């Protein structure tokens, strides 16, 4: 059965011309208008931030599926091994076990030291209830606005603007939240702006990201400011979004450009979201 739109009739011969009609430009125009409307509502009212986290929850099975090929490839060598090879690997595992027992004896000593450190830790004002774990799921491939998606526990009380931390400092802040997922705007994002203070010169400023693999910039710094190269940069706590004293990066370049009224101060971020699997979410009070 031929569909009505599948052919035209030739004016000369009156025969059917089987041609697929081109997409109507009006439809394309309407789609572009719709996309523009979506973008504008997102820019001005952040309309998508409320649904993004839940959309990530929906895509969670996709994230789980991603590991299937890796697990399958890892399981292939095991299934191809012979009985004698398995016996050999069992003997190696037993030897490894003996080694671990010896190491455990040393660990007892380390754990005592750890207890002391823990008591020191608990004497500070930090509240452990404010921390929760997060596991990396994916990072978007947009190099100027990279979004890190992390898995959070169902009972996690994380909220918007909470801070994501790694052992080497601040990673970013939480911008969208679902039941099991959260989206993080990392420091490298061009939209990210963090109030900071420098270690030695004690000067305030805002660090803005410039994209993955690029250094950040401290904005609007007067030419009279006396920054030092290699100086460490910490969050200043101004504006109340980020807690005070979290390591952000290190000053790697200071340039006094003739055509600019401000100094160009570049900050290298020590942490990158790519080489870390687990993070801490800090709930800022």
């Amino acid at each position, binding site marked *: 059965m031929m569909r009505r739109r599948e052919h035209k009739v030739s004016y000369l011969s009156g025969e059917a011309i089987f041609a697929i009609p081109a997409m109507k430009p009006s439809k394309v125009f309407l789609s572009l208008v719709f996309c523009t409307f979506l973008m504008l509502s997102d820019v001005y009212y952040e309309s998508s931030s409320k649904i993004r986290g839940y959309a990530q929850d929906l895509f969670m099975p996709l994230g789980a599926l991603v590991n299937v090929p890796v697990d399958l490839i890892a399981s292939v060598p095991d299934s191809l091994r012979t009985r004698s090879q398995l016996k050999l690997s069992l003997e190696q595992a037993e030897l490894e076990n003996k080694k671990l027992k010896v190491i455990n004896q040393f660990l007892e000593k380390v754990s005592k030291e750890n207890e002391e450190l823990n008591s020191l830790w608990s004497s500070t004002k930090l509240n452990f209830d404010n921390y929760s774990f997060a596991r990396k799921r994916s990072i978007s491939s947009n190099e100027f606005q990279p*979004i890190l998606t992390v898995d959070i526990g169902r009972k996690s009380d994380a909220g918007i603007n909470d801070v994501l931390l790694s052992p080497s400092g601040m990673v970013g802040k939480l911008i969208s939240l679902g039941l099991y997922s959260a989206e993080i705007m990392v420091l490298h994002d061009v939209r990210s702006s963090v109030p900071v203070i420098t270690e030695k010169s004690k000067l305030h400023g805002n660090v803005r990201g410039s994209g993955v693999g690029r250094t950040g910039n401290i904005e609007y710094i007067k030419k009279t400011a006396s920054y030092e190269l290699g100086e460490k940069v910490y969050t200043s706590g101004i504006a109340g979004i980020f807690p005070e004293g979290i390591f952000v990066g290190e000053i790697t370049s200071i340039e006094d450009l003739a055509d600019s009224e401000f100094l160009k101060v570049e900050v290298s971020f020590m942490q990158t979201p790519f080489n870390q699997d687990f993070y801490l979410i800090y709930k800022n009070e």
Partner: protein
Amino acid sequence: MNRELKNQLLIFLTLFIALYIDSYLFSSAFQMLKPTFVLLTLIYWNMALPDRIGIMAALSFGIFVDLIEGSLLGFHGVPFVLITYLCQRFFYQFRVSPLWQQSFIVFFLFILYKQVFALDLSNTNQDITNLSDISFLFSSFLFALFSALIWSPLYLILRYYRRRWVKS
């Protein structure tokens, strides 16, 4: 099942598989350069069966990619819709070209597509990038090159899939 519906489902299945590959996390260097498989698959179906896929599919998958990538909603929709339109408009010329010529066209389409990411739609930073930004140009070139290289095998796989499963 109705054949039309079955064909549609089979086409959408490939697009969802492409979405799955796009959400795969690669190493830091390759993550920014990996081809957008959804767009490549969309180009293939627009070229092979333009009457089976339309603007709504381009728009919907653009929004799906926005949700996965965390970009502004509608941001990927614009290039997806425009590329879909171009492919549908010129599919007669495109599909009779040899594979290397198609790869060449894909290369230029993806270079242009990558430039969209440099647009500062939120007005956050006055100088995100420009054409003198060598590192961005280089990453755009590599991104387009990978996409062009992957086009030929993807084309052959999808053609086999279409001939085997998607009956007209």
